[in-house]
């Protein structure tokens, strides 16, 4: 009896093991059947009005990093009525599944930013597998060209386009980086306007250049910030250092390098009405270039000169965007945090913003004159 029972158990066990062989998996595709899309570009269609041209940059896996000298990419381009349609057609251009989980950059043609931001962004946010920490950039000329650029310094397993933004490679105050979630948040919110970096490429596609930016506002042509204004924006919003100012002192041209930067801003109100905006900057830096010998005794003097210079630059940035009725720093948002929410909070702000005076205070502290006096 006991033997019989054991046999039965053994028999059940064998059946169970055999069942495992019949399992076909959970509908999961293996990694060798997937293609990793690392960048998506959206352009307006060349043929038809209102259609989009979608470019996918696909990274081809390499067997060994040492053997590969250059990274290899495949590009898929198709035009469609909407992004989904184009992507679906592109899936038929390859034998593998397109995997969007590694998409790190989304490029949108400058021309689409005026009216179609929501259409374009909706698709990327709605798809759960696309990271919300992908970077968004505005492509100048066309997104396809920028995606196709393959800089000379690119290595086999890293994509230059991404390294611009992730702060592991270059860190520069001229580069604005905006995540997808950040862009979506700021473009939907009242009292702040999103800023996107402009990515350009040179004629033969061997270089990528990122040093300008765009302030995007739904329904309006985006306003382009020059390199210098981009730098001011970054120093104000992200407290980024690493840039220089030129001051003149007794016929001597001195270039100051700002290392650290601390920014505080406050909207001053009187009886619920905004009356001015206070911006306070605290910077530390050093002298990087000078025509003549410098004396450490004069550091105080240089500080003062630098403060004036900083003030001038910051004021220039603030008044330029104010004139355009844009608010990339989010002063309006700051104002909203100070008042109990009711319907006219925002309209009060919008009325007042255009002629609000700025009060900029800069506090520059130079630490040294470098390795020589």
């Amino acid at each position, binding site marked *: 009896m006991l033997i019989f029972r054991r046999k039965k158990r053994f028999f059940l066990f064998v059946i169970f093991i055999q069942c495992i062989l019949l399992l076909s998996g*959970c509908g999961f*595709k293996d990694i060798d059947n997937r293609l990793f899309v690392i960048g998506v570009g959206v352009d307006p269609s060349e043929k038809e009005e209102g259609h989009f041209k979608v470019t996918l940059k696909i990274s081809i896996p390499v067997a060994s990093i040492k053997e590969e000298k250059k990274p290899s990419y495949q590009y898929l381009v198709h035009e469609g009525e909407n992004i989904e349609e184009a992507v679906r057609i592109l899936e038929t251009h390859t034998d593998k599944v397109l995997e969007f989980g590694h998409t790190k950059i989304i490029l949108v043609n400058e021309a689409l930013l005026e009216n179609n931001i929501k259409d374009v962004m909706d698709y990327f946010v709605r798809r759960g597998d696309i*990271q919300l920490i992908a970077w968004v950039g505005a492509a100048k000329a066309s997104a396809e060209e920028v995606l196709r650029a393959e800089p000379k310094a690119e290595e086999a397993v890293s994509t230059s386009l991404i390294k611009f933004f992730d702060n*592991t490679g270059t860190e520069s105050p001229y580069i604005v980086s905006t995540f997808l979630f*950040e862009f979506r*948040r700021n473009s*939907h*919110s009242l009292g702040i306007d999103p800023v996107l970096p402009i990515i350009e490429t040179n004629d033969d596609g061997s270089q990528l250049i990122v040093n300008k930016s765009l302030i995007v506002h739904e329904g309006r042509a985006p306003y382009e910030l020059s390199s210098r204004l981009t730098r001011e924006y970054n120093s104000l919003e992200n407290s980024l250092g690493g840039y220089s100012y030129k001051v003149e002192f007794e016929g001597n041209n001195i270039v100051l390098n700002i290392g650290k930067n601390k920014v505080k801003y406050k909207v001053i109100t009187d009886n619920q009405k905004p009356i001015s905006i206070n911006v306070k900057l605290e910077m530390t830096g050093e002298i990087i270039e000078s025509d003549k010998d410098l004396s450490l005794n004069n550091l105080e003097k240089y500080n003062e000169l630098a403060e004036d210079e900083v003030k001038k630059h910051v004021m220039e940035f603030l008044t330029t965007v104010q004139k355009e009725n844009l608010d990339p720093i989010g002063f309006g*948002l700051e104002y909203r945090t100070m008042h*109990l929410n009711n319907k006219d909070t925002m309209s009060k702000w919008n009325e007042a913003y255009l002629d609000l005076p700025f009060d900029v205070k800069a506090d520059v502290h130079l630490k040294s004159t470098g390795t020589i006096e």
Partner: protein
Amino acid sequence: MYYLIFVTMFANIIATVPRILVIEKEKGVILSMIAAVFVGIIFTYYVIQLFNKFSGQTLPDILKSYSPKWFYIPVILYFAVTWFIAGIITLITYVFLFTTFVSLETSLIVTALAFVIIISFGMLMKSGSVLYTLEIVFVLLLPVIVFLFIKIITDENLEWDFIQVAMMNINTTPSYRSFTAASYLFIGVVNIVIFNSFFKEKLTFGFKQMTIISTVGALVLFITYFIPIGFNGFEQIEHMNFPWVSTSDSVRMKYGVIERVVFIFIITFLGISFLSLLVHWHVSLKLFESILHFNKLKWKNKNWTSYFFVILFGVVSIYLVSIIDEFELFKYASIFYNTLPIFYFILFLSLFVAKRGAKV
């Protein structure tokens, strides 16, 4: 005891509660949350006090000995069904979430089946083993959860201005819907109806315990509601189906092994929702068993009633997963939360009846 309460608190983050809160963002959610903390803590206190009078007995035991049959059968049936629904909301939400973010090609039913099979084993465990499982898994996951929260809160892209804007809506009167959703966090204590048999000694629930539970509860509520707003802005947060998953997707670990925090988040909360599901359905199973015992289902000297219920649970949940969509899920979940006050009322009523019967 703490585990029961805390698991429910954390599990709500993955459930529908944050969604309801952000939808009610302009209708007095803040005051509702504050009210929910107070009501929740008072509720916890009284439930524990009442059960202390019947140390070592489960609710069915108590009701069977001290109240008439026509009273206790519907009451226990109602509790069992409520618990089953609470479990199924967690299950379906998680299945949807899993297919949206992790495994897009897998069908809903396969995912749900995987959950149900594992949970079924858990449900059939002894109540004691369930408590131990709960304790071990929760203790293992807690550091990860704390790490995730710290990582998310200290992220530089979290814009506190939006949180302040959200706070500026404090001047609105509280709404019923957000109140019930927020008070759902504190419902974990009700699991005592079955697990009370393990608390042979009287539970002390003094000032210290109350402070701990209310602090943790308030903190979890704060995180649940405000952090998604800080990441996604105030204006359109209500359009997000899974505010918390999107939030964790917005955080990046630059030098982490996995760059996207969302995967760690989903896996961790997989554990937490498993626990919450396990506890809910185990309690539900025990309640069903206590009133419905089929003598006919006897085979080989063993009664198969509990197996019958487990299979029934599985079949019902798979069926629901296949027919329901996200919108309906949300609708039914909020209706369920809205009926919770009735649930509290019946619980207290039955306990008072029992207390009078027992004359203690």
